[in-house]
């Protein structure tokens, strides 16, 4: 209980805009050179202009239709605390294509949420710091941008939905206030235009009688409806990418399945690319086109969903799938993975899964495996396939 009470405070502290109080050292690429701060003036940031420049950049960069919307290359996010340096995200690579849902699956502490947060510079700093890699979105490396420059992307072109809707909504502001904020800020909507758009989005999320609910406060909504409101806020500005970090964990099964079905429909309607972070293979099976499995800060396997379930390439994926009970089958004894994932601050050398792996070889303990192509679109980082 005590821990739960401290958490909101800690979160609030982590969210303090420290970068506005002191010049922020934004570390880019593999070097530790600080970037210049404040390319844009603090106030009066002209988003339309920035938008135009971004569009121009994109055209010159990669006009190919098959190019990914987002591509993450060798992303390293480290934690700096009293316990030393923790390589929480340790060289993550993935691509997100237009209109697809990519599942980022892993157990707690594997770095999946930190990866997602760092895409838009939302990781808590300190203790986390992006120490290397790039996040290419529309020809721009988001890692290189300052927090002010990132505002043109956050909520506008890349939106996020987090686990617990109650912590993402402000309890003392009405839904209308909170839904209107991104629209006023990013789309410069006012008055009737604003209301129309707000009602449009609430209708998109199938919130009954939206005109009556704009003046309601978050506590007047049920858990499932609250999560829809958060979804409405996220989708209000027509983002190209939605990052959903375990959005249904706090919901009931019945509400969850309705929410997931709705999200799928909306994705088809508006053509959204989704990064879906979860630990639940059921959600992956239902929602995702492709899956990236994370373990101890690395992506150990990437595969199309069906391939992943049919022939998992990495022993970790295989073991995880074997340890999930199936509601629609008479129970068989589950194969459990012995041991626990390594701690962030002392990872084994070589393959992180080696201590728990049933196929472990001498090589696994000394050398970290490279990504190996196993099947079309499927890569696994395991020495087994070499």
């Amino acid at each position, binding site marked *: 209980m005590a821990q739960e009470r401290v958490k909101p405070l800690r979160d609030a502290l982590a969210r303090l805009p420290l970068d506005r109080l002191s010049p922020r050292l934004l570390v880019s690429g593999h070097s530790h050179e600080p970037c210049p701060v404040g390319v844009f003036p603090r106030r009066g940031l002209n988003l339309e202009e920035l938008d135009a420049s971004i569009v121009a950049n994109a055209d010159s960069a990669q006009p190919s239709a098959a190019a990914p919307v987002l591509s993450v290359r060798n992303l390293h996010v480290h934690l700096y605390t009293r316990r030393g340096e923790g390589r929480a995200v340790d060289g993550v690579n993935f691509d997100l294509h237009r209109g697809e849902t990519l599942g980022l699956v892993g*157990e707690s502490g594997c770095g999946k949420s930190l990866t997602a947060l760092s895409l838009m510079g939302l990781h808590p700093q300190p203790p986390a710091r992006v120490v290397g890699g790039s996040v290419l979105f529309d020809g721009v490396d988001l890692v290189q941008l300052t927090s002010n420059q990132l505002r043109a992307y956050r909520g506008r072109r890349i939106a996020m939905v987090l686990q617990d809707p109650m912590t993402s909504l402000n309890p003392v502001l009405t839904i209308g206030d909170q839904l209107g904020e991104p629209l006023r800020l990013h789309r410069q909507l006012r008055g009737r235009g604003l209301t129309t758009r707000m009602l449009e989005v609430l209708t998109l999320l199938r919130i009954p009688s939206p005109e009556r609910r704009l003046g309601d406060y978050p506590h007047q909504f049920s858990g499932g*409806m609250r999560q829809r409101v958060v979804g409405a806020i996220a989708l209000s500005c027509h983002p190209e990418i939605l990052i959903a970090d375990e959005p249904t964990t706090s919901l009931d099964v019945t509400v969850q399945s*309705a929410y997931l079905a709705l999200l799928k429909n909306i994705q088809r309607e508006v053509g959204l690319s989704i990064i879906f972070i979860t630990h639940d293979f059921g959600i992956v099976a239902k929602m995702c086109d492709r899956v990236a499995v994370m373990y101890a800060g690395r992506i150990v396997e990437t595969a199309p969903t069906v391939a992943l379930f049919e022939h998992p390439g990495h022993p970790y994926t295989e073991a995880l799938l074997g340890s999930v009970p199936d509601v629609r089958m008479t129970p068989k004894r589950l194969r459990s993975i012995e041991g626990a994932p390594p701690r962030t601050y002392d990872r084994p050398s070589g393959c992180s899964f080696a201590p728990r792996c049933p196929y472990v070889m001498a090589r696994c303990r000394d050398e970290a495996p490279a990504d190996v192509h196993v099947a079309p679109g499927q890569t696994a980082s395991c020495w087994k396939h070499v």
Partner: protein
Amino acid sequence: MTLNGAPGLQVTQLVKHFPVRRGLPWARPDAYVRAVDGISFEVKRHETVSLVGESGCGKTTTARLILRLEKPTSGHIRFDDRDINMVRGSDLRGYRASVQAVFQDPGSSMNPRMRAKDIISEPLLINQGMPRRQRETLAAELLETVGLDRSLRNDYPHEFSGGMRQRLAVARALSLSPSLIVLDEPVSALDVSIRAQIMNLLKDLQERLGVAYLLVAHDLATVRYLSHRLVVMYLGEIAEAGPSEAIFTKPLHPYTQALIAAALPARPGERSTGVILSGDLPSPTNPPPGCRFHTRCPMAFERCREEKPVMRELAPGQRVSCHLY
């Protein structure tokens, strides 16, 4: 305590209403939250009975009533043929020793300043006044029973991972050799790879020690894996109860059907059959008249809105409360 096959726990017409007051604590209540509203079921020895349903259906309240953490408004809970709300003194202590609990978050149910061996053996000190030397030996044995190494006995809870802490909680629950353990969401806070370990542990312990479980969980896959019998609750009432496999293969109540349909598939492409429920659970303060499920039921007809269905046994051991049958 009693012979095998004898009824372990019997719940009859159990009711728990919580008063809702707007004014001062002694003011007349404005309304009552009807958390549990007349439920009956039993847990036999050596078996696992699961309470399932959405949040707010009263499953946790039922578990708390059985643990005597709440007093029922009416109805009886009998354990080994004695009403648990009537027992006093040493009999009450005996009851507490034979019914133990494991909760969702093992971290918050342990004193952070106590060592593992003390956490596990505290019930022995309190209930039996067992001397220190003997307690330490038993604690070490219990650690091994739940698959932890003896050498961890001097560690503090924070030094354990989530899964290990849940093992510790199980060890503590086992220390008094109870005949029933109430498991309130025992694996939902754990990681996927750890969940299977704990579920297998619980199964093995039941086989070895013959302990009965009352499982409260919302994840149906977990429930199907562990239970022998199910009690499906909706708004404080039982919608359907019966043998687990019978219900999972042929759910009869529309609510059970919807719950199972809403459960996520284990593989891609696996189609769930049945309807997705719309809307939320109605307020338990003012439950709908007639069948409580009629507001969300895809099969509801006139009679459901007016008349409360009675529980009927439609298949061996499978009781359903629905007008369809």
